[in-house]
């Protein structure tokens, strides 16, 4: 699978239409959906934010980050610590900024080295941050775990929707921008990019940090719906794994790939009871392996491939000859 394919949504009307439909659906949902379905939808949107922001960096530059869970957990803890002191919108920003700062620090140390070190660091980062928070929480604050003030379900849903829209739009505009071009050049051939004037370290750190903002913000918004959290709940590698499987499954070459994957997997993760969840985590693992092996471009790529094939078949039948038209995607 070529994971560094051009990351542009070249079907602009489709994207805009999809977003509008999504927003309309979600806006009205709390009116007819119950409490639990609303939470499910919020979770689905959360995974969308995580998946899209993961692809923003790892999908374009090719540097595999396993860190989303770490930034997500920081977001949860931002809410835990600040919920009594700051209004919710401000906490969202603060959580995003702390994640940004941490990502910059991590990036500066590891992104100037070979990609393998970055990946290694990002892998254990969730344990690193989680343990540090655990220590600070237990030894300095003398407590274990936090309870969250309940926030109106609809508010949380709208906040997550807003974040999801912002994330998708950010990913879209970045991919069309100078920064996006630089990122893709790094993914294409980092050495060549560096020699064509791209400050690869700076671009990598910046992009990684930007993606971390959204991950942190997602954690902030999800937190109140958890009602309780402690370090092992907040910092769980599953919050890295599910978005990544979702992105890979959906297809990383297009913007709607991670979105679709995240909605599907987020739904599954939230709606399955604990017993079945074990089987489905197992299933996610199998899906990951199968997709890497056989569906190089994920579901979206499969759809394109089918469309090409069908298009070819149909025009063959039409023309009745071997003039096969290549269906453009």
């Amino acid at each position, binding site marked *: 699978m070529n994971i*560094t394919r*051009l990351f542009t949504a070249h079907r602009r009307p489709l994207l805009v239409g999809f977003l509008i439909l999504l927003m309309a659906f979600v806006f009205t949902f709390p009116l007819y959906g119950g409490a639990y379905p609303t939470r499910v939808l919020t979770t689905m949107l959360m995974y969308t934010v995580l998946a899209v922001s993961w692809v923003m960096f790892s999908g374009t530059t090719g540097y595999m980050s396993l860190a989303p869970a770490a930034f997500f957990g920081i977001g949860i803890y931002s809410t835990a610590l600040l919920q009594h002191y700051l209004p919710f919108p401000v906490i969202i920003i603060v959580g995003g900024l702390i994640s940004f700062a941490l990502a910059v620090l991590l990036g500066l140390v590891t992104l100037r080295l070979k990609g393998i070190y970055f990946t290694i660091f990002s892998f254990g980062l969730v344990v690193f941050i989680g343990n540090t928070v655990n220590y600070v929480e237990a030894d300095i604050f003398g407590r274990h775990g936090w309870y969250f003030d309940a926030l109106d379900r609809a508010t949380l849903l709208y906040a997550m929707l807003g974040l999801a829209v912002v994330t998708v739009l950010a990913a879209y505009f970045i991919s069309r921008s100078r920064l996006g071009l630089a990122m893709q050049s790094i993914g*294409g051939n980092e*050495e060549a990019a560096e020699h064509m004037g791209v400050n690869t370290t700076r671009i990598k750190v910046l992009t990684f940090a930007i993606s971390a903002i959204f991950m942190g913000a997602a954690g902030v918004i999800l937190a109140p719906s958890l009602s309780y959290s402690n370090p092992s709940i907040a910092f769980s590698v599953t919050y890295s794994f599910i978005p990544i499987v979702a992105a890979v499954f959906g297809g990383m070459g297009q913007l709607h790939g991670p979105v679709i994957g995240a909605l599907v997997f987020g739904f599954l993760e939230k709606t399955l009871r604990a017993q079945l969840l074990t089987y489905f985590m197992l299933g996610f693992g199998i899906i990951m392996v199968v997709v890497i092996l056989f569906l190089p471009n994920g579901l979206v790529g499969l759809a394109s491939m089918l469309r090409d094939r069908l298009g070819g078949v149909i025009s063959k039948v039409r023309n009745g000859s071997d003039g096969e038209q290549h269906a453009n995607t």
Partner: protein
Amino acid sequence: MRILECQGVTKFFGGLAAVSNVDFHVDQGEIVGLIGPNGAGKTTLFNLVAGTFPLSSGEIKFKGRKLSGLKPHRICQMGIARTFQETKVFANMPVLQNVLVGAFFGTPTHVSGAAAAREATQSLEFVGLSAMGATPISDLTLANQKRVEVARALATKPELLLLDELMAGLTPTEVGEAMELVTRIRDKGITVVMVEHVMKAIMGVSGRVMVLHHGEKLAEGTCNEISCNKTVIDVYLGKESNAGS
């Protein structure tokens, strides 16, 4: 004017000296050929000039300014561009985007989208590929991919262009076209240093030639001087003169 000066340039990898105490200079407007057997250190020398890795010892100056410690992107923005022996195009982009990268980032000052697009289009035209802008680069032949590399390098508005085995794998016709391209580049005012194994191309286009062998400078001079140089012939040219490419 000496646009590039190398003094005592040495690079060790572990215990092995890939480049050893090389002195040479390039004057503005020249086309200088760099030849030598495989493993002689030619690409390593290019890498040292372009900043891919640091010198072990010695000094490289570009327009009088020392290059040591500068990162490749800075060196590119200062005016040195290069192509690569194993073609390093951005396989995940169409042709125009490849060149756009150079246009956007290769200059020290900020470039507007429109200006970069103009520059990239002109670059593609210059190498004769303007029809292929939207084509995915992996669909191109090797020869054309190399041209895109050249266009990309030219889009960075260099004063010095390092071409690494531009002609490798090309048919004789394509070699002729490439030679003509190099001459046109020089006519634009860009100084060229080219590593080549295709003798016909080097001799046909270069003003001066330097020969490297085992990382050391073996000889330097005009094409005639080099082709008559006994040491060079013994070491290198003798095998090559009948080869052709």
